[in-house]
């Protein structure tokens, strides 16, 4: 259990995490967040770095293997003494394992033997490979929606669903921490979700822009430029 009053000034200096998701402009840049986080002790900063390193997809190479990702999460788990943060890490691993299993099965992959992924369901999933939702509907109510989005080839929708599930998990844990290190770590993880969310919106906007640009270029053939044939 961390000191409950360890980071009162730091937490009070951050904009509310709910505001991150409703603001049109990001209320806190990564640079400003990093500046605020200099108030963390060396030990807490190390734990937070390990946590972000394991949970933030931005920190992974494109060609990372399952074994490397699992190893990174195991290292983060070992270096995180706070029970709440360990629970968050395990819950996120459960989510990733379930989604990875859905993707593997959709691609026609053969049922894994023994253990698949990491977390509480790593043995349960291979044992229930034939079930549409690996018999996880009770523990993971979102898995039906995730499967539908995956089958509908809607990666953006799936990304948003997973971010929303992760955000709900963090909110649940945040209700027990106000000014301690766990509260800071949960805030940073929420900020990372907000960042991914904003990026996915940017990607959406880029797609729409490309579509409109193509439409405009198609129409351009009919435009009679003044003086072009003069």
């Amino acid at each position, binding site marked *: 259990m961390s000191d409950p*009053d360890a980071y009162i*000034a730091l937490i009070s*200096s*951050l904009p*509310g995490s709910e*505001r991150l998701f409703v603001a049109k402009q990001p209320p806190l840049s990564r640079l400003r967040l990093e500046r605020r986080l200099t108030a963390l002790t060396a030990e807490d900063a190390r734990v937070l770095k390990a946590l972000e390193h394991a949970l933030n997809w931005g920190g992974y190479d494109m060609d990372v293997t399952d074994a490397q990702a699992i190893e990174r999460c195991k290292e983060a788990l070992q270096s995180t003494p706070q029970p709440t943060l360990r629970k968050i890490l395990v819950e996120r691993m459960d989510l990733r394992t379930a989604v990875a299993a859905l993707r593997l099965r959709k691609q026609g992959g053969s049922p894994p033997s023994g253990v698949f992924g990491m977390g509480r369901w790593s043995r349960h999933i291979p044992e229930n490979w034939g079930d549409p939702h690996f018999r996880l509907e009770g523990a993971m109510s979102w898995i039906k929606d995730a499967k539908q989005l995956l089958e509908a080839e809607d990666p953006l929708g799936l990304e948003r669903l997973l971010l929303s599930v992760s955000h709900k998990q963090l909110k649940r844990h945040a209700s027990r921490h106000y*000014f301690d290190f766990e509260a800071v770590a949960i805030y940073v993880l929420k900020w990372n979700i907000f960042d991914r969310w904003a990026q996915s919106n940017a990607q959406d906007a880029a797609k729409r822009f490309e579509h409109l640009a193509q439409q405009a270029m198609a129409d351009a053939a009919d435009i009679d430029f003044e003086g072009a044939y003069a």
Partner: protein
Amino acid sequence: MNELVLTLGWLGIYAPMALGAAASAIGCSIAGMASIGAMTETEGGYGRFVGVSAFPSTMVIYGIVIMFTLNRDVTPENAGGLFGIGILSGIALMYCGIWQGRACAAAINATKEKPEVFGLSLAPAAIIEGFGVFAFVFALVISAGIS
């Protein structure tokens, strides 16, 4: 044996003042840290933050009044009563001060996001103040029975 009893009596007289001072110091520092943090994020209303962070300072005032009320010649007959009332009222004030500081810190953090909840967010701190007043008033009432 008498010396020990008399020492406990003196301890009881000064305890409300000492523990009240500790309560106010810790409570004000907790709420003060929150107000400093909030000042870096907001554009105004700094005076309100500083005012709220001074709320727990009342605990030391209650402690001083209890100390003066208990202050008398310590005898083996009244030392036990002085010790009991002084120590227990001091502990009550200390808890009230620390937790009031945390309640004020939460109020400041909430007000930073939604200035319109300023008054309502202070309700928990005001309720804790009420408990401190209970400890204060009944310490005075009960001390009247000590010779």
